[in-house]
Every structure is written in structure tokens, then in C-alpha cells.
């Protein structure tokens, strides 16, 4: 099985690291497999652990273009797959009538259902591209169940059927990444077609590396303190545990406030950056015995 994406899990780790994404073993193995087996990759995990970022990093590392479909409630075929450009079609009909060139209905009919009048949406765009493409279907759990049905044809056969034109099959299979916050269970049919990866909060080492690569001017000792504190916060039973994105924000805050040492006073002053619920902040203050 040839792989044009990554040569091996180790290769995936190295090339993702080059573009600034520090993947752990599970992430790089699964990413490699998604490329090698040409199967979609379903990423699940809490918000802010770098799910979308992984897709972007794959695109950067392989020099592919990223096509993104942001999912939301009420997303439909016309905005995910393709749509006919009605206005242009109408103009075309009127133009042929006005010029009176005697073109019959059959000719016009054939004429207005061609590529020229087709508005391609992300899914179709990704399939028709001949260059390497990463297709990111973001927050797929936000869509209605019907859209999942729509995705099935695309995900398993990489083809789209347009009644007027026939079936469009991918010339070159895109690297498909689906992300989900697990706000609802995806259907078994979608899951079965994908490889699955659960991204979780990173361990101390990796998180420190991530923060240091993202935030310039953060010294080693402060980064260590910060990462340890975030890890402790995650151990508490909070409604929303701090994500990587939030620890990066915290690091930026500390830099901006010129705090060099993350002592208890500094933590309680800046806690609002990482904890967004009042009850969470209270719990943290109580458990970590911070000054109020």
C-alpha cells in the first residue's frame, strides 16, 4: 500500500513537529494510518486540545491545501455539497430567448446544467481537486443527523452523485479529518467508516513544549510552574477543565503582566484566564488553598 502522505508514524511525528504540531504517539500513528489506508480520521476530545489544529498541521506538513467545512445546526446539502446557480441559469434562459437564435428547449436544458452553473461547496470542491487536499469537516456533532447520511457517500467512496451530471469520483482521495466535541454520539455508520482518535490533554512534557513553542519569551522555570499548575487544575473536578488553548492564553497573560514567578497570589489574580465558571474558580481556590 503506497502512501503519499507520510512514510511511517515516526515520519509523521517529525514532519508535524516541523510545522509546529507536537503529536504524541497515538496521534502520529493514527495520522499515518489515515493517510496510508486512505480512510477518514475522526478526532474526538474536549474543546481546545488541538483537533482542528492537527488537520491544519497535516495540510502544512504535506503541502496540501486545506478545504474546510464548518458544521452547524441546519447545515444542508446546498451548503455542504453543491448548488445550482439559479440566477445565472435564469439569465441564460432569458438571454437565449431574447436573442431569438431559435435554440430549442432541449439545447438550453442541456446548456444550463453544466459545470458553468454549478456552485461547488466544500465537499465537492475537495473531491474534484487534483492537487493534494486536506478536507476538514469541523464539529461534525453540531449537524443534524441527516447531514451524516450525506457524508456517508463522500466518506466511503469519495464520490458525489449529482442527478443532472452523474457521479463525480475523486481523482485523488483527499485526507479527510472530522472533528467532534462529542456533544452527541455520531451514528455507527459514520464511525465505522473512520479511524478513530481520542485527543486528550497532553502530559506535562508535551504541554510545556507546546506552550514554549507558542509563546515567545517564556522562560523554562515559569513554563514548568504553569504546566504543573494546569495539570493540578485538571485533576480537580471542574465543569470545564482548562484546555491547551487556555494554558497558552495563561502564559501570554503572565508575559503581559510581567509575572516572573507563578506563586499563589499570582495564580489567584489570573485564575480567570483558565477557569470560566464561578463555581470552578471557587473550587480551585478552596482545593489549592489560594489566597482570595
Amino acid at each position: 500500500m503506497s502512501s503519499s502522505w507520510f512514510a511511517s508514524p515516526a515520519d509523521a511525528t517529525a514532519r508535524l513537529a516541523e510545522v509546529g504540531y507536537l503529536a504524541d504517539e497515538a496521534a502520529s500513528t493514527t495520522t499515518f494510518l489515515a493517510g496510508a489506508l486512505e480512510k477518514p480520521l475522526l478526532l474526538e476530545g474536549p474543546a481546545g486540545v488541538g483537533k482542528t489544529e492537527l488537520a491544519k498541521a497535516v495540510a502544512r506538513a504535506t503541502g496540501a491545501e486545506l478545504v474546510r467545512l464548518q458544521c452547524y445546526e441546519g447545515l444542508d446539502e446546498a451548503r455542504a455539497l453543491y448548488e445550482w446557480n439559479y440566477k445565472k441559469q435564469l439569465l441564460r434562459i432569458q438571454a437565449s430567448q431574447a436573442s431569438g437564435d431559435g435554440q430549442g428547449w432541449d439545447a438550453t436544458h442541456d446548456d444550463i446544467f453544466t459545470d458553468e452553473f454549478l456552485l461547488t461547496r466544500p465537499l465537492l470542491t475537495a473531491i474534484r481537486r487534483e492537487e493534494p487536499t486536506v478536507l476538514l469537516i469541523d464539529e461534525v456533532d453540531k449537524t443534524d443527523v441527516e447531514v451524516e447520511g450525506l457524508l456517508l457517500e463522500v466518506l466511503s467512496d469519495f464520490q458525489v452523485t449529482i442527478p443532472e451530471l452523474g457521479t463525480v469520483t475523486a481523482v485523488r482521495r483527499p485526507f479527510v479529518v472530522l472533528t467532534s466535541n462529542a456533544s452527541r454520539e455520531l451514528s455507527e455508520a459514520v464511525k465505522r467508516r473512520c479511524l478513530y482518535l481520542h485527543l486528550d490533554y497532553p502530559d506535562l512534557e508535551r504541554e510545556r513544549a507546546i506552550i514554549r513553542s507558542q509563546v515567545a519569551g517564556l522562560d523554562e522555570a515559569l513554563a514548568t510552574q504553569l504546566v504543573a499548575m494546569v495539570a493540578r487544575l485538571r485533576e480537580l473536578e471542574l465543569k470545564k477543565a482548562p484546555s491547551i488553548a487556555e494554558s497558552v492564553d495563561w502564559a501570554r497573560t503572565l508575559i503581559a503582566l510581567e509575572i516572573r514567578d507563578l506563586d499563589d497570589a499570582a495564580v489567584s489574580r489570573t485564575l480567570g484566564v483558565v477557569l470560566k465558571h464561578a463555581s470552578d474558580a471557587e473550587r480551585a481556590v478552596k482545593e489549592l488553598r489560594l489566597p482570595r
Partner: protein
Amino acid sequence: MRLPSLRRDAGTAGPGPSGDERPRGSGLLERHVLFVEALRGAGLPVSLAEDLDAIAVLRALDWDDRAVVREGYAAALVKRHGQRPTFDTLFDLYFPRVTGSGGQSLGDVGEEPGGSDDDPGSPEGSAGAEGAPVTDNAAALEAFREQLLDALLAGDEQRLQRMAAEMVARFGAMPGRGPGLSSWSAYTALQRVAPQELTDRIVAGLLAQGRTEEEATRAAGQRVGGLTAAVEADARRRIAEEKGPDHLARVAVRPTLERLDFLQMRRTDLEQMRREIHPLARRLATRLTQQHAARRRGPLDFRRTVRASMSTGGVPLTTHHRPKRPHRSELVVLCDVSGSVAHFAQFTLLLVFALRDQFQGVRAFTFIDHVHEVTPLLRPGADLVDVMADLSASTAQAALWGRTNYGRAFTRFAELHPDAIGPKTSLLVLGDARSNYSDLALDTVADIAGRVRHAHWLNPEHRRQWDTGDSAAGRYAEIVPMVECRNLAQLSEFVRDLL
């Protein structure tokens, strides 16, 4: 880490226990099929398509790193995060890290992790630990503990894995009466070596390395916990090797959190469970909102449809509907909080309150032999841990003599809180209906059930235990529909139907 078993199975059949049964072929395929079977047995819905994917994964990967193979396998087979622990346990059983006795000699720390694996299952390998002259006496135990302390202080994962294997081999062997009857016990090994007692010394050692006291305590706890888990896993692996993994897969694998019985939970399960409450409530609420949105249209408004059709020449192109009246019921929850049923009641209460928005109002009462209202404890946005603590603390107020008495509780409820129930109320009773052979007050219950819109009873016991001993499940079930609700899956299913 090497992957001896895969290698061996892929090559010619080795002399190991699994090889004896399957003399021909590589054995990898059979091992894979058995593994998938075991996963299905443990409740993971592995389809044939995923099965084939897993094979494709194995072809695409190199087998020189066990962790990579495991992740690859998991990517193809496990599609729910909650099922991952089950997968890991089974993977360790079917594709063990080492075979035979693993590390053997005390001083041989520099040895390659898989050094002794090249002849796995060979007579020397398995006999090595037991046959060595001095392996199990007081001095050896003491020496081993020193080594273990050293390894724990260093926090070297690889070395700890090896020491865990050695620990089971040397201190956890249970000689049987005949060949094939010997076994391994993680419990014995842990009792004898007692890594828990080393905790203080690890803390002291870590403090000397310049950690703060809190950090040191936490790190020590984590490392000892990790070692305990490793020892347990290694004992399982050894048993699996002797009796075949299929035997062990049936008994050793714990059900996923969703399927775990409320009445059989350990303390760690409870904590995990508490973390599950909010995501679960959110999932349920999302689905409900979507379902409601889909059914937003009410019945056809004939008059408006006909009038609108006038503008299109009498053809009803668009239909008009009456707006749907959202009906939201009030929920009254009555929970038995005695003894072991308490956990179940608390979870259900928390889940119901997390879904508070879906009801017009929720009131909660706890009882043992007296009724106590706990609605004020369940404030919106309150901290879950505090709420749980408050709930436990208020248990005392629900008891007069402390012996569960359903009849008395219902009677008191009817007397003290007649305002709580009305025609718009849904009543939810949580409890095992074990009333210490006291008066059941069936008339009162029937009266209450008659005055509310719906009444449900959730019983955390298995259906086959109903009506055994002092359980009055059957007699109450005649008045209030009773549902078996033993785990999170059943609970969320019930709550979904309720709304």
C-alpha cells in the same frame, strides 16, 4: 519494546502454550479473530468492516513497536473513548508485552527490556524465576524492596514494568497441586512486597530531589498506583498464558463505566462517574433540543390553510400549522438514601438536576424512614463535589431510627408535602423497595400515584433479585410502573424517554 508474541505467531509456531493448540499456520490471524471475539464479548460493537480495517492497519504498520501497533489497532476498532480501558486490558491479554517470566535476575538492570523474550515460553524462561536458588526469602525480599524503592524514586517506567513482572514471578507464585494448577496472585505479591509502605520513603527521597512536599506526595502516590496496576496486569498476563486468554477475558475485564452496576461501584468509579454527569446531561439535552426542533410543527390548521390557498387559485401550496404548545412537567423525585442505594440515588438526582431546564420545576426529597426536602441543596451552577457532600451530610435528617421504612416515608410525605404533587406532576421514586418487612402503606402510594400525571419507580437491583428477601418490588410495581436501572446506560435511556 519488542513484540514477541506477534513475531512468534507470525513466524513458525513457537513452543508456547498457544502454539501447542494451533500447530499449523502463523497463528496471527487466529489470534486476531479471537481478540476481536473477546472485544465483542466485552461489549464493543466491532463490525466486520472494522475487523478488516484492523487487518489493513497491521499490514501498513511495522511491528517493531508494540505501542504503535496498539494505537493502530485501537484506531480501527475502538470508536468510543469510554471503551478504551477495556480494549487495553484485552490487548494486554492477547498480545502480551513479554511472555514467560520476563525479567529474571536481580542485578541485571541494564538488560534489554525484551532481552529474555527471544525464547518466550521456553522451559528455561518459565523455570528461571522459580528454579533460581535464592529467589524468595526474607533477605531477597528486603533486597528487592530496596531495588524497587530505587526504581520508584527514579520514576523509570520501563524499569518499573520489568520489576512488576519480576515481583509477580518471585513473590506472587501460587504453586498448585499438579501441573497446570499453579497460578499467580497479584494480591500475594503486593501484600508481601507492600509497595504502599515505601510511600513515605519515596516522598522523603523526592523531597531531597528538591520537590515541594505536595508534589512529592502526589508523585509518590501516582508511582505506587502505577506499580500496583502493572503488577495486577502482569498477574493477569501470566494466568492468561497458562489458561488461555479466552478464559480470562470473560472474568478479568471490568465492564465499561456505562455498564457498571451502581451497587458494585468502587470509590474510583464514583469519581469517574461524577465527571460523566455533566457531559451526559449535555448530550441528552442536545438530542432533546434537536428532537423538539424537528417536531416543532403542531397539527394542521385547516382554516388558515384553506384561506391561504385562495391566493394560489384554491390549490393549497403551503400548509399552515397550529403552534405546538410546549408542555413541561414538574418533576418530584423521592429518593431512598439508605446504605448502598445512596450512590444510585445521588447520581440520578444530579443527572435530573443537570437537566433542570427541561422541566418546569424540580423538587427532590430524600428518605430513609422520614422525609427531608433537599431541593435547596441543588442550586443551579453549584459545584458538584459540594452538592454530593451536602447530600451525604443531610442523610441524617431523612432518618428517625435509621431503618429503611418505605411505608412510613410515603405516609410522612403525603402528610408533610401535599402541595408537592398535583395533576401536572411527574413522580419519580428511586430505591430498591427493601422495606425491612414493615408496613408498605400501599393505599397511600396508590393515592399519591393516582393524583400525579405520571409515576415511575427506578430500581437499581437486577430484576431477578426483585421480591427476594424483604424486597417489596412486585407489590409496589403493581401500583407504580417499575423500571430496572442498574447502570448509566439504562439511566440515560430512562431519562430520555421521560422527557
